[in-house]
């Protein structure tokens, strides 16, 4: 009886663990974005300190964004010039840079009202989820599209935000390329710039 009970508890625990390892979010891209938006909004509305808000937003970003993929995309062709050690260093630096930049941008909104409108399945790897950041007295309405990577259908990940048709990932990629090119193609100078941004 005792043995059976332990097997039962183990079984239930395993299911719980398995579910968490797949994703705490919906596998449907539209629902997934809705959940991410709701979760971020809760944090932004709560009267937390700025540091706490940024910490909690970073925790969400780590779960829902494909930071490594975005980092590689952002580096463009230059990623082929890096050795394994440098690539690892870049991954670490990019993650810190991304989280700081992402949370800083989001923290500017105290009570964002976002309507998730529709989802457009491009192919098996990508779905574009369309949403609308509603206008306030100060800011006009803004269209935001989320490029959701769906290769693992159980765990969708955000790869890009497209604000009024302008891709943030692409902007970042061109910014990184500019830093590298203005330093005669030396990618390690980008590392220095990222470090400066992180420490700022």
């Amino acid at each position, binding site marked *: 009886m005792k043995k059976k009970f332990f097997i039962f508890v183990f079984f239930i625990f395993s299911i719980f663990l398995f579910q968490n390892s797949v994703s705490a979010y919906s596998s449907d891209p539209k629902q997934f974005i809705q959940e991410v938006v709701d979760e971020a909004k809760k944090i932004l509305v709560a009267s937390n300190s700025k540091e706490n808000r940024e910490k909690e937003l970073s925790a969400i970003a780590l779960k829902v964004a*494909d930071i*490594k*993929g975005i980092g*590689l*995309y952002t580096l463009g062709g230059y990623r082929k010039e890096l050795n394994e050690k440098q690539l690892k260093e870049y991954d670490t630096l990019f993650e810190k*840079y991304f989280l700081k*930049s992402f949370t*800083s*941008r989001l923290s*500017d909104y105290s009570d964002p009202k976002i309507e998730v409108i529709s989802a*457009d399945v*491009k*192919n098996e*790897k*990508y779905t*574009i989820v*369309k949403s609308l950041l509603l206008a306030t*007295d*100060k*800011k*006009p309405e803004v*269209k935001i*599209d989320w490029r959701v990577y769906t*290769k693992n259908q159980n765990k969708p990940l955000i*790869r*890009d935000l*497209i604000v*009024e*048709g*302008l*891709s943030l990932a*692409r*902007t970042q990629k*061109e*910014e*990184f*390329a*500019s*830093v590298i090119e*203005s330093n005669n193609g030396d990618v390690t100078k980008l590392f220095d*710039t*990222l470090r*400066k*941004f992180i420490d700022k």
Partner: protein
Amino acid sequence: MIRKILYIAIFAMFFQANTANAGSTGSEDLKSPTKITADECFEGFSRAMFTFNHGLDKAVFKPVAKGYRALPVPIRRGTGNAMDNLRSLLTLSNNLLQGDFSAAGNTAGRFAINTTVGILGIFDPASALGLKEKGKEDFGQTLGVWGADPGCYFVLPILGPTTARDAIGKVGNVFLDPVFQITHNTEIDNGVIGNSTYSEHNYYYYRTTSAVDFRAKNIESFDSLEKNSIDFYASLKSLYLQNRSKKILNTESKVDTQDDSDWEEIEN
């Protein structure tokens, strides 16, 4: 004399744009009528102009935009609507030049309704009546639709980022904008065009008010972009070129301007 200088400038810009296109074939142009990237013409000069404009923005434009934002919302909204309504005349000229008659009908309908029922464009009843499309067109976009590549990228003092194509477009806009044609009065004596009731100053007041309205709507966006950029100049260049490409394609979504091949190697 001024007209001569403008013609020379237009010729020079066309020459520059054509030089930038040298080496590309006609078929490539057809496949990719809206290049998102553009080489720098003279980056050192552009970065210096960018710094100058940025300083000017901090000292003048941003404070003015903040002051404008202190006005009550209905006044700002009404001003923005009225400026957009006047701006739609330039859009109409370009809708026609692009052969987009459906958009031209929409623009003309919106202008007629908003100017009359909407009291000189202060209100926007046209949207409530179903004419919701507010796309803006200019001569740079028209050149893009006709197949012109952007040419090289540079930054103009005060006017900001542009490309060879869009610089020609800026000159073209002056001639194509009915508001300018009505307000300028240099050739009235010759009976060519113009209106003695309005002076050219009105055109510049309207352009300046539009610019202040735009800046006021984007104070936080610019601040956030500056704060989170590692190369602000490059960020603005990228956003400018993406925006122009989007406008030429008349697409609301990046999906149409950026295919998956950009990402295809990144598979975790």
